[in-house]
């Protein structure tokens, strides 16, 4: 979501960012997507709670078509969890905080 609490990434720095040793959760979103907005506060909470353990990132799919295309993303919000640059798991839709915590726990 469009907030400063969650670091925004783009097609250019995507690969290097998710290859970090700390696991990453990437929120693929767009400004016209209601459910993306709906889960925004939850994503911000998670960024705060997992500081240092999991990096929470967001990518605007409108401005960055290459990366979502590469992962076959055709619905948003889609959240993909990466560890050492590899996909651990992913989830689509305005899911609850518990489901996201369960997802993140797969990389810890």
């Amino acid at each position, binding site marked *: 979501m469009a907030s400063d609490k969650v670091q925004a990434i783009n097609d250019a720095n995507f690969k290097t960012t998710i290859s970090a040793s700390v696991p990453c959760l990437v929120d693929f979103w767009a400004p016209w997507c209601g459910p*993306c907005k709906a889960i925004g506060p939850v994503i911000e909470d998670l960024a705060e709670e997992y500081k240092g353990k999991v990096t929470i990132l967001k990518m605007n799919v409108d401005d960055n078509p290459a990366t979502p295309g590469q992962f*076959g993303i055709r*619905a948003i919000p889609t959240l993909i969890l990466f560890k050492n640059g590899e996909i651990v798991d992913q989830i689509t*839709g305005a899911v609850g905080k518990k489901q996201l915590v369960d997802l993140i726990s797969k990389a810890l």
Partner: protein
Amino acid sequence: MKKTHFELIILGSGPAGLTAGLYAARARLDHLLIEKGAAGGQVLLTDWVDNYPGFPDGLSGFELAEKMEAHARRFGLNTLTANVVSMDLSQTPKRLTTEDGEQLSCNALIICTGARPQLLGIPGEVEFTGRGVSYCATCDAPFYRNMHVAVVGGGNTAVQEASHLTKFASRVTLIHRRDALRATKIVQERAFANDKIDFIWNSHITAIEGEKGVERIHIKDNSGKETSLAVDGVFILIGVIPNSEMLPLQLLKAEHGGFIPTDNETRTAIAGVMAAGDIRSKEVRQIVNAAGEGATAVLAAEHYLNNSTL
């Protein structure tokens, strides 16, 4: 210490909850509106709202949700972002428990938890969600530029969103299990006049298939004849199911799979508990109804708070 008891708690922040919040704040009730995420509810899934009075040019669902929230905030709406997972409504004060284990209580409760899209329950549906299966045309239509998509359903949401999809997709095939649409006439007229939309009547889809993403769907008509259709995506817009998992369904005498029956004043079977919006057991689920019920519910709550010996 953090305040945990309120005269009135409103659960949910769709049009019913936000209107209840507006009325509660203006009535200076000691209130709390609990929202799961950002305000708006299913309105956020709606591309364009053309039938909400007072907006003659129509407006996006997004914009309407923002306006409703801003309106309630102007009068001092109190909100908390939390996910309520259970509650005890058998006594007063009524107690609510959040996912984080937080306990809240209130004398009166307005349930506005709304509804969410219904799944078809066919092979491939869950597997391809996010990779060709979608429940929100507004969100995902831009991914289908110059592609062929199927829409399943015949109500307002399905037919209106089929028209919206034609802004991106080159072809939209609407599949409906009856021989006529249920959508409002003007919504139907627009769809019939759109040459990018074709219709498959008296049919339902039985499976969704593909490799990395959706490639084809299987269709069965009412005589039992089976065909398949190559599509890049499927939008499933067949109605809603209630968000009622956190509710004591038996005490509330829930019906039709979790919808809450009320009287004309939105009062449920439990004294001091009102229900408004799509969670109510009713025939018509329009934004304007939800808003109206939210207002009714606060007036019923006020009446209850002023007349009961708590």
